[in-house]
């Protein structure tokens, strides 16, 4: 089957997103995690621009610009500032058994690909085959949130999941309406600020950013 060149670029971006999702899954350093997240935003913006160009959808240009501004620049900057202020810039998380996590991730990818196959058959967009990858990156971000115990990586996982959802929307239906996208963007930004304040609260209450401390409901 012949795919037009723009479609090939989009497929390439999708593959890179999946690669970054796996890199995030196995990354121990918080600083590198944030850089990966920033790179993910950049690739998302590039792929959205290419989709906008190939499908002649004007509003996708705006959402690409929004993605670039918010997810590749502003959010990583906020995260960088946060980890500097929290003094956890060089924190290394103890991750047990990365091969097992990766294997579970691989199973999730197979699951997502199979799940997306019938849906993408019905879609009429140029990007329909990337739906499986979008779903896979959402699931992988989920997995990342489950396997982490510290607060900042969990938030990065949450933001990465939002990236995956955005990519799924672009690949299945050429993106959501502009109002919805603006709303989500604002939500993410405000959510980031609130979570940033939460980090400080959690640390003053528990003396650590490890969320295991929050599992106890009783006070001693």
């Amino acid at each position, binding site marked *: 089957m012949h795919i037009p060149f723009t479609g090939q670029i989009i*497929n*390439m971006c999708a*593959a890179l997103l999946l690669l970054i999702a796996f890199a995030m899954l196995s990354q121990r350093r918080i600083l590198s995690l944030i850089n990966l997240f920033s790179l993910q935003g950049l690739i998302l913006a590039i792929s959205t621009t290419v989709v906008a160009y190939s499908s002649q959808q004007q509003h996708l240009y705006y959402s690409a610009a929004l993605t670039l501004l918010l997810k590749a620049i502003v959010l990583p900057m906020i995260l960088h500032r946060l980890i500097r202020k929290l003094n956890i810039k060089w924190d290394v998380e103890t991750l047990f058994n*990365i*091969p097992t996590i990766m294997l579970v991730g*691989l199973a999730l*990818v197979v699951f997502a690909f199979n799940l997306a196959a019938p849906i993408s058959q019905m879609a009429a967009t140029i990007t329909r085959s990337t739906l499986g990858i979008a779903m896979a990156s959402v699931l992988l971000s989920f997995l990342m949130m489950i396997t982490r115990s510290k607060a900042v990586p969990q938030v990065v996982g949450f933001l990465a999941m939002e990236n995956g959802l955005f990519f799924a929307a672009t690949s299945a239906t050429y993106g959501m309406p502009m109002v919805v996208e603006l709303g989500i963007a604002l939500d993410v930004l405000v959510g980031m600020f609130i979570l940033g304040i939460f980090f400080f609260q959690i640390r003053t209450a528990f003396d650590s950013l490890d969320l295991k401390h929050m599992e106890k409901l009783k006070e001693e």
Partner: protein
Amino acid sequence: MNASALLLQLMQNVLVLLAAPLLLGWINQCRAWLQNRSGAGVLQPYRNLIKLFHKDAVLAFGASPLFRITPYILLACMWLAAALVPVLATDLPLSPAVDVIALVGIFALARVFISLAAMDIGTAFGSLGARREMLVGFLAEPALLMVLFTASTISQSTSLITIVETLAHKQFVLYPSMTFAAVAFVMVLLAENARIPVDNPSTHLELTMIHEAMILEYSARHLALVEWAGALKLLAYMAIGIALFIPYGIAEAGNWNALPLAIVLLTLKLLLAGAGLAFIETISAKMRIFRVPEFMGTAFLLAVLGLLTHFLLET
């Protein structure tokens, strides 16, 4: 098979044999530059080889004939592997003799022999190195096979020539699956050629060495052959990488006018690949030996992901 193709095959045979130490010298020189040292020059591996060939060989007490013939087998395997990868033109007459699976088999054969020879002497270091080499090897091999299978599913053939022709001479197509395969291949290349972060080629510290521990008992011409084989192996791996991921510019079958350009391009690609390898080695630290399975497992998973992506996006 015509005479000109045969000539090309002969030329590649001689060229890889002579150029392999040069590539090693270039990588060492790049590493020296990146680490703010002046370096020994790109010709240093040749001087080492000449020096070693002039010395008298010393054999350990009780060494069996296996120990003596292993360097020759190693050199033959690596030379064969490096000579059969189409990097200059796609009509290598001997190349159909070996498809990608047999190519992996050749590397396995060499690994078995060097491990046996290392254990043959009976020193602690030899068997330690052999066991570590087998650990790395059996994890790297499936990853390498998966990388090659990704390329094979694209071109629907396991023959290297068909793969290269599909990638280089058909209409230009971006293959997302090859991104995964490329990352996995670089990881395999680092592990198989005893480079940092898996092994350090310039150390003799007993806790960390893998490849060096195996060849500790070799001296003089035997050591020279083993080191030459090592350089050839690195060249073979880089040639496979070039053939799979950046084959553009390779001369078409029977097109002799494109050959000079192909040679220049190949030299440029090898120089860039060598500099890239030196860069990777400079920015990464050697990892603990127990982290190696994790590293190779990641390579394998990435290669499998490449296959999966191929079936999702490219069919």
